[in-house]
């Protein structure tokens, strides 16, 4: 098929699909939504590799339309009602954003950040200061999304500027330390942060004077879908830009990258700042959704959960990471919880005594080790990353392979 024809077909599929989805929702006919989603999915497939941004839009449209319908089907419908699934999806979206941001740092640039939750906290508190009764301010949500992202990025630069010169694994420790310091500082600066009490009564987003309701999860869901879509498009564009190629060059061999004219410090700093700003974005959204922020929400387990999401999803692959985060969050928050209740209710001898949530981090641990040993490229690898991680299989070279952590070969 010629490119022009394919493009037209894709376009038609998108329009028909969106129309069908719209009709399906208005009339309340899930099958129509399904057919519509098929069209948009077809559009995404047709444009794959050719028109990235539109592929993302079509792909996200498919997912957005399908998810609420899928949860009406067995067995998903037994877990909880549609509204609750939707509510869960918007929280899952927070983790998708976090994973996308961390992926810039870990996946694309090969810098290990173990204190990523700190930037999430900074974004959250930025909005808490800007729109709560604690400060008496009430800035609107949408511009604050950007402000939260910027303030997180500023902290990212402040932390990164002096430390990014270090070897990669030192960076891991510095960020881990930073991730510990931020909640401690928030906790113990009661005068400015209300300390352990946290800041409550944070405003909800508003659109044309319509405030997002507490009980109807749809506005948050749609807003989240919008934010994730835009973020993904931006990250894809970045990845394909000169900067993105510089990131990957640094990841693969920093010394070589530096000698071919890449300014490694600035490049890494940008990765760090952009990763942080995505976390800030997620933080603003989370603060507004939960209406309360407390330091307890940003402990190291958040950083490690997001890291597990990125690793399992496939470092470097934007779709992989997004899907990994989404699936992991859903499993952890809905299915593990329900498994407990299900087995407890059914009184299955052995299984009912197991607390699946209790073993969450054990499962993460096993998954991380198994993943690194067996499939380091993740469940949904990016092609480039896969090639790089399996370099040993290709040719049994000397031990001095390219080092993703950016350390020079010995």
């Amino acid at each position, binding site marked *: 098929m010629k490119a022009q024809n394919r493009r037209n077909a894709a376009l038609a599929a998108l329009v028909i699909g969106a129309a069908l989805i719209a009709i399906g929702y208005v009339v309340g006919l899930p099958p129509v939504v399904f057919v519509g989603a098929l069209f948009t999915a077809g559009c995404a497939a047709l444009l794959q590799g050719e028109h990235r941004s539109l592929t993302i839009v079509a792909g996200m449209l498919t997912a957005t339309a399908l998810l609420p319908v899928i949860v009406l089907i067995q067995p998903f419908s037994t877990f909880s009602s549609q509204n609750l699934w939707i509510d869960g999806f918007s929280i899952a979206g927070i983790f998708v954003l976090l994973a996308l941001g961390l992926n810039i740092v*870990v996946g694309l640039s*090969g810098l*290990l950040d*173990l204190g990523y939750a700190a930037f999430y906290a900074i974004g959250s508190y930025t909005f808490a200061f800007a729109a709560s009764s604690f400060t008496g301010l009430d800035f609107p949500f949408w511009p604050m999304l950007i402000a939260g992202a910027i303030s997180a990025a500023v902290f990212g630069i402040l932390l990164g500027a002096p*430390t*990014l*010169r*270090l*070897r*990669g*694994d*030192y960076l*891991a*420790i*510095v960020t*881990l*330390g*930073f991730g*510990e*310091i931020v909640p*401690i*500082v928030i*906790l*113990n600066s009661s005068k400015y942060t209300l300390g352990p009490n946290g800041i409550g009564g944070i405003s909800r987003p508003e659109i044309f004077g319509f405030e997002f309701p507490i009980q109807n999860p749809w506005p948050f869901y749609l807003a989240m879908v919008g934010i994730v879509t835009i973020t993904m498009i931006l990250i894809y564009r970045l990845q394909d830009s000169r900067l993105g190629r510089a990131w990957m060059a640094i990841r693969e061999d*920093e*010394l070589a990258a*530096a000698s071919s004219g890449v300014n*490694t*410090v600035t490049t890494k700093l940008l990765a760090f700042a952009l990763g942080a700003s995505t976390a800030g974005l997620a933080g603003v959204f989370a603060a507004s959704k939960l209406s309360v922020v407390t330091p307890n929400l940003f402990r*190291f387990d958040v950083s490690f959960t997001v*890291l597990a999401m990125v*690793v399992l999803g496939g*470092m470097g692959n934007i779709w992989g990471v997004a899907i990994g985060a989404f699936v992991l969050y859903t499993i952890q928050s809905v299915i593990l919880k329900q498994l407990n209740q299900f087995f407890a209710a059914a009184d299955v001898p052995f299984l009912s005594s197991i607390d699946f949530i*209790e*073993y969450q*981090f*054990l499962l*993460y*641990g*096993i*998954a*991380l*080790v198994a*993943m*690194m*040993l067996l499939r*380091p490229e993740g469940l949904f690898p990016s092609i480039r990353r896969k090639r*790089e*991680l399996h370099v*040993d299989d290709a040719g049994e070279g000397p*031990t001095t*392979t*390219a*080092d*993703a*952590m*950016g*350390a*020079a070969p*010995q």
Partner: protein
Amino acid sequence: MSSVATSAPAAPSANPILALRRAGPFFFVLALAALVYALIGPQQFANALTIGAIYALIALGYTMVYGIIALINFAHGEIFMVGAFVSLFFLGEQLGQTGPVRDLPVLLVLVIAAFLVTMVVVGLLGVLIERFAYRPLRNAPRLAPLITAIGISFILQNVVQIIYGPSPVNTPQIIAPTERFGLLGASIGYVNLFVLAAAVVLMVLLQLFVNRTRLGRAMRSTAQDREAAQLMGVDINRTIAATFFIGSALAGAAGVVYGLYFGNISFVIGFQAGLKAFTAAVLGGIGNITGAALGGFIIGFVEVTAAATGYFVWAQALVFTTLILVLVFRPAGLLGQQLGERA
């Protein structure tokens, strides 16, 4: 990559400037100790030395592993925690100890047995982890074993939690914690003295081992240049395994003394202690054994000084701030070689 696994500070050197440079950090630590002593008094100073000794023992394992394969062994803090539980299992559950043992010979036998059993078990655990989780990734990108290490630490934590439950568990304090003696106007617990002595003895033994034995020499040469060492006939796998054994065994010893000193352990003690011990290793110059020991004591000083001056809630933040500042301004640490800023 750091090139020296150990430095012999007292070694006579033809170059007086070099000798001075080597001695410099020791003067720094001594001066710091004097300052801290003046600030917080003998009683708190004893507390700082005790907790510092525990950090130092854990830090040794970090520094040895980093020195030899340039891996931050994230699971090391958890190995320390496992050590504390192995010691509880041996002393408490197998030997049925619950409280102080007043009979000195019996006490001595018990303590030494606890050290030996724990150190061997935990050392083997370290070897096992290296064999199955790190060795297959030795030539992989550096990110890979780091992530495996995080995974291993989750696994160790959760396995202990499953066995012993989420609540803290009491350990037998076979050295009576309330028995004290007077020194310089302070009243020091015998258990404090014991912790410090045990740590110092183990460190001296380690120095002797690394400097005087064949295996120790193999370790140093592997740390310096793995390929050259291999060419010279050093069995790299065996040497790395031995390093893991010794490093983990020392963390196990730290677990034993932790249990004896505090009398209570839980599955979460490894994370914080590991982080602080890592800070100690970096502070001293990662890869440098003497440095790690000094670093441990410095962390003890920082923590206790914060507590003694009314900034207890900031103690942790202060330790991590120290870490960041050291990494930024002197990434090689106190005793490490100044490296080029290779990223």
